[in-house]
């Protein structure tokens, strides 16, 4: 390869910087793609459970498997689940809610507080598939970035969602959310919800890279805030890192790949990380892996590597 003829760069750890090379064989490729495969299984599986329960009467022990949609649902006829952000907005409209939905929101909130807030984005949200498609197309078509927008805009949108919920008396984001629009219509029938999907694709493709998920989505912002505290993280083994930059190149939220902060924390500390696992599979040095939070001095002393490094 061309790189072999150049002078090899040396990383800060004194080792030569190696580029990521996509394996030629299928098993190798599958290994690189493993997280995207897992995520699609989880995303589509969830969707299928909803759809199957609604349209094909899927049951376990005579109870429907998963009824409702990502806004609120009932698992096996008993466990309530609800979108905590939606519930927060409804709460802000100054309406008393049933305990059921509050418990449901609590369950989901707890789940993502443990798993990493934006794990939702990469592993559950149906728009993620659309956004990934846009990003892939954008790479293939080599569309240049022209507009730059702060990724913090999403926090403004988040704040607006909450304020407008108070002012207008309806859950502000729920009424315009392309996520629930898309999901609802996948499960309950076709309306103009596809327009939302096409809107996200066009926006992400032609206007702004990672435009919706990385810049605007208040639900992502909400989970980012929660995600700060999550024990499940991507761990960073700084001694092995050659600063080759492969991780940042594939990351949909590259600002989280701040290697200085990562070195300090021993992990990707930002809540904006979606735990998509792309960085893990492209890292030539196996520097990154899923694991439990390593907190210098205050938390877990010995990191347990969960997935990588076996």
């Amino acid at each position: 390869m061309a790189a072999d003829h150049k002078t090899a760069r040396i990383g800060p750890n004194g080792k030569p910087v190696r580029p990521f090379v996509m394996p030629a064989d299928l098993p190798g490729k599958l290994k690189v793609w493993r997280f995207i495969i897992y995520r699609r299984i989880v995303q589509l599986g969830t969707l299928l459970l909803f759809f199957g329960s609604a349209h094909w009467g899927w049951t376990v022990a005579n109870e429907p498997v998963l009824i409702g949609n990502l806004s609120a649902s009932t698992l096996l006829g008993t466990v309530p689940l609800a979108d905590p952000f939606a519930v927060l907005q409804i709460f802000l409209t100054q309406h008393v809610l049933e305990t059921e939905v509050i418990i449901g929101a609590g369950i989901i909130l707890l789940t993502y507080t443990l798993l990493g807030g934006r794990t939702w984005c990469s592993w559950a949200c149906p728009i993620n598939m659309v956004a990934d498609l846009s990003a892939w197309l954008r790479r293939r078509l080599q569309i240049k970035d022209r507009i730059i927008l702060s990724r913090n805009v999403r926090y403004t949108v988040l704040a607006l969602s909450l304020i407008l919920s108070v002012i207008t008396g309806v859950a502000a984001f729920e009424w315009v959310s392309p996520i629930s629009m898309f999901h609802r219509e996948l499960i309950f029938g076709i309306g103009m919800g596809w327009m939302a999907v096409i809107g996200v694709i066009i926006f992400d493709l032609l206007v702004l890279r990672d435009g919706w998920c990385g810049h605007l989505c208040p639900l992502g912002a909400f989970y980012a805030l929660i995600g700060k505290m999550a024990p499940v993280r991507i761990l960073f083994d700084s001694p092995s890192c050659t600063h080759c930059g492969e991780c940042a190149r594939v990351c949909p939220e590259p600002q989280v790949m701040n290697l200085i902060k990562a070195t300090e924390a021993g992990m990707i500390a930002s809540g904006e990380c979606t735990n998509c696992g792309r960085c893990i599979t492209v890292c030539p040095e196996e520097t990154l892996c899923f694991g439990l939070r390593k907190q210098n001095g205050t938390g877990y002393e010995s990191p347990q590597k969960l997935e990588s490094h076996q």
Partner: protein
Amino acid sequence: MTAKSSRREFLTRSAQGIALAATGGLVWSYLLQQQAQAAPHAIRPPGAHDEVDFNAKCIKCGQCVRDCPYDTLKLAPAGDSVAIGTPYFIPREIPCYMCIDIPCVKACPTGALDPSLEVIEDSRMGLAVIDIENCLSWQGLRCEICHRECPVQNKAITVEHHPRKISKHAMFVPLVHSDACTGCGVCEKACPTEVAAIRVVQPELVQGKIGEHYRLGWTIDTPITQDFKPQQRVDEQPAPATGLDYLNQGDL
């Protein structure tokens, strides 16, 4: 970059940001208002709160839709005339068949469908209204399907017999009573005219109101009060005289 210029830039950017957020917020809240008012007269599932509260509380999860055994309910898709994602039904297509166990209300996690609704006959999804110009029974034909099919028969819809001027056939005219009509829409579905002559609508669209100051003489028995308690007259400061403008101005 000097501290001053960076400070100015910061202020400018902040101002821009705030302006952008404010504009965005305004547009957004306009959209919300539009949406929330999209179809204020949609026919909602049993137990639905009034439209404002319902719109606020409904989380658009569709569990009521799934639990409706008759496929009556649907979630409004984007672009529909009904507020996006909320459950509603079109009686002429599939009416509410008034399940005794009200599964839709049971399914609602947020209470947008009021869980205190225990008897389906108490629900008020809408009010049936008869277009007496196009109602066959009101012309004298023996139809009255709405009456016979009404699940709250003889309470929500009754039939009155009226003489018909031009022949010796009594007219059997159906009448709807708002105190018992649940708005289930079975009548609208069953109505045999090409366009239904009985329709379910939100009551505020069609219902009038007798003045608070008047009671219909025959509706309640009100005996003359036997122990009348007169109110003491209080001496008041005389207010400025009224009526002077009229009295003093203009010619006769």
